[in-house]
């Protein structure tokens, strides 16, 4: 059973998260400020930590920094601050994910699971890295059997969706415009406006992302195109 440390100064929130995660079969230990969290981390085998930013005493940012000195467990930051700057700060100091309040409980659970899977897979599983296997973070495409895995979970994609995703993953970091994608996949010149590519991309995102509006892998570069974030 995997242990998750939840730390927030709002008891009701901790309680609610506890209910959701326990319901998913995790062991939850609760802390209400940073010092408590650090103490619990020392005394327990913790697999993942969910921490609030604004807390009395040691805040979430400093707690994360402290934890990162000794441990590499996944850390999800939970915050009422939803601005970009706050997110960037949190991710830069070593957090693995950032969820702004008020959050969708199901999304939280999904992210917790995703991070745990990745963490354990990275730790145990050494996937054969051949020419036909493309990896990007938790996203893995095996071109031999046309399988797409996200955090170890098999994803079902249509052939066109697969081809689009493969194109993007193969060229991770490069931005493809709709026309470019169309020409590569359909092998014909893109004439006239068509929503096909955009709709497919939307579908892919809905399948591989936990929150399609805030994608981790398939990012929309608005007004330019799409890309897979190099990880």
């Amino acid at each position: 059973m995997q242990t998750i440390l939840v730390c927030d100064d709002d008891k009701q929130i901790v309680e609610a998260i506890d209910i959701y995660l326990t319901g998913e079969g995790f062991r939850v230990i609760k802390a209400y400020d940073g010092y408590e969290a650090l103490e619990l981390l020392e005394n327990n085998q913790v697999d993942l930590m969910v921490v609030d930013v604004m807390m009395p005493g040691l805040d979430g940012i400093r707690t994360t920094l402290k934890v990162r000195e000794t441990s590499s467990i996944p850390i999800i930051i939970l915050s009422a601050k939803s601005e970009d700057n706050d997110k960037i700060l949190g991710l830069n100091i070593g957090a693995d994910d950032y969820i702004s309040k008020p959050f969708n409980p199901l999304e939280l659970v999904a992210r917790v699971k995703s991070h745990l899977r990745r963490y354990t897979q990275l730790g145990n599983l050494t996937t054969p890295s051949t020419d036909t296997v493309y990896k990007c973070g938790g996203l893995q495409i095996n071109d031999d059997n046309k399988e797409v895995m996200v955090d170890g979970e098999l994803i079902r994609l249509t052939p066109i969706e697969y081809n689009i995703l493969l194109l993007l993953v193969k060229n991770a970091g490069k931005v493809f415009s709709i026309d470019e994608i169309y020409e590569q996949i359909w092998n014909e010149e893109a004439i006239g406006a068509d929503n096909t590519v955009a709709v497919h991309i939307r579908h892919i995102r809905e399948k591989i992302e936990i929150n399609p509006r805030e994608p981790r892998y398939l990012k929309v570069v608005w007004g330019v195109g799409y890309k897979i974030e190099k990880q």
Partner: protein
Amino acid sequence: MKRSHLPISIKKQTVIFLHLLFLCLSFAGITFIIFNPNYGRGLNWLQEEDYADTHSFSRRLEADVDNVFRYVRYKDLLELDGEVNLDAEMFCVTYNSGITKIYTLGEAVSYARRLGYYLNDDFVVAGGPDVHEWESHDLSSPYVEWKTYAPDEVSQGPGDALSSLEELSLQVLNMLGDYYQVRYDYIDKPSNLYFRVSYMDDMGNELLYTNAERRSNEELRQLGRYLYISGNSLFVESNLRYIPENIISLLSNNNRYGNQDYYILLAVDISFPNPDPYAEAQEGYLRTRTEYISGAVMFLLGAVGLLITLVLMALLTGHVDGDRTKIVRHYYDELPLECLFLLCLIALWLAHLALESIIPRVIRLIISDSYQDYARKMIRYILIWLILLFAGLSMLRNYKAHMLWKGSLLYRGLHRILPAIAGLSIPLRFTAAFLGYLFADACLLSGFYFLYSQRDSLGIPYLYLVPLLVLTAFQVWVYLMLYRSRAESQKIADGILKMSAGGPGYKIDPEGFSEPAERVSQALNSLSDGLEAALSEQVKSERLKADLITNVSHDIKTPLTSIINYVDLLKREQINDPKIQGYLEVLDQKSQRLKTLTEDLVEASKASSGNIKLEISEINLVELVQQADGEFEERFAVRHLNLVSTLPDEDVLIAADGRRMWRVLENLYNNAFKYAMENSRIYVEVEKRDGFAYFTIKNVSANPLNINADELTERFVRGDVARTTEGSGLGLSIAKSLTQLQGGSFEIYIDGDLFKAQVGFPIQKSATHK
């Protein structure tokens, strides 16, 4: 330096007294110089010249040369072995009776003496016959046969040779006087002039005339000045400055041998040991020299003293004992400057009149005629000096009291007029200034014309150029003033334009401005300051508001998280009561709405306060719209909305922040999604027009749009007044703010139930443009 404690009044009186004294001294000096015979020769002669070099010396020498040759002539005639020979024959006459008689010197002299003639102490013929004796006098005129003293005299006509015996004997007596004179002056009495005249006949017999028998020629030459002329040389040996002009002719005329063996040596002992006319003249010469020098020294002393006392007077005048800063003005100092000038002119005129009339008469009583002109001149100068001194000191006192300019009529007049001018309206003042300018131009031009036309009758050449130069300078001045004024107003206008163009921090630099422009620019600067302060205050308050909203929203989010979570938990509790499920649904909806509301609120406040960091780059509007279409197509399908896009084939590039632009489109699409009538079409279009790219979205509203287009973009305004539908009412407001932040235009049009939103951006001319 020790300060003297004399009262200032005593100092003043002393200085004035000294000033007058120095004035007299310098005029006395000038008098000495002017009446010196050497006046007008400068000062060099004082150093260079000796008496022996002067003209008066050479004149005296020339006269003496005459005398010497007279002696040469008379000596042979009248003298025998150094004594006067009374038996020397003088002339021969033939009387009418036929008797011819030769008269000797003794006979001629005794005849003259009989008639009453005699030689006085100065060897000049004096006396004469008594009138009564004249009657009985023999008036017969004998015929003159010959005269020993004038052997070359030839009668020209029958009457010429007739002469009276009286006349002849007088001639002899005169000759004798001359002889005595020369002999007395140069031979009997020790003289400073030495001469030696020598004629030699062919036999070697020498005729020698000299007053220096015991001295050799060389000795004579050592005495000082000498002159040696020889018959066999053309050159004159001499160290004299001027050679007497008569000497050469006299020397050859008196040569009775007709050969070249003769010479003359003249020498002057320049130590002048003997009392003779030379010594006297030397003394006189030295005296005038001393006088000239002392005159010059007096003049110099007087001038320096005048200058010093003038400075002292200038320093002292107006001051009194005690308060050093206090300036006392005399009652006549109260007069305006112009009156002082006038008074001065009147005084000068009166002085002139007096000099013309009364003063000469008074002078005539005291001073001899020959000095009168000079005395008048002196008095004129002294009077002018005193009048100017008086006026100058008065001006100086006024200057010290800072009343020179203020006290003048011009100043007083200007002070009357200027406020009156200042009170005039600007157009009148401008007109007055322009008329003044024209008037000044006209005056100067006519002055030039007058002087030019009269240029020949005026003594001063090119006087007509003066008004021309003044006119030019005046034009330049006017031009500079106008230029400056124009430049200043241009600067101010530029400043105003810059300020109004959103640069409230802009300041006009009033450096070097004239007074009114400086005031205007300072007022503008303070206006700009005020505007800037107000703007920054506004920005600050907007920021504070945004911060407040952000903080409040943070505080709301935490309890909201719990609400959402627990509502969700409740829903999972498998409650079958449809009533409770309905309630939960409401709770769920409203809590979700609260969530979007808080998020939108933060975004709206930030967008409207500009508190957002933009990442502007080049994006393709067509691509963006395609992406947005892709995002929304399926959602639209839920409400049976048909999306119709009209996009150009080419890329349309604009400079914007891609994510913010997405937010704008997302809000617009969302708006259409929420408010469009079901089963209707939503038209999306991108077009290029006049260098701008326009994105347009059109839909038919489900509810009647009884509202202003402008009001729609205001916060919390929604098309449905009842506010039953989902949404914060901030979507369009955020979209508008974000668009404007990125430099785009955002317009909403409402036509009946047709809702139309248009976003416009300038098209970027890019190299990657297809």
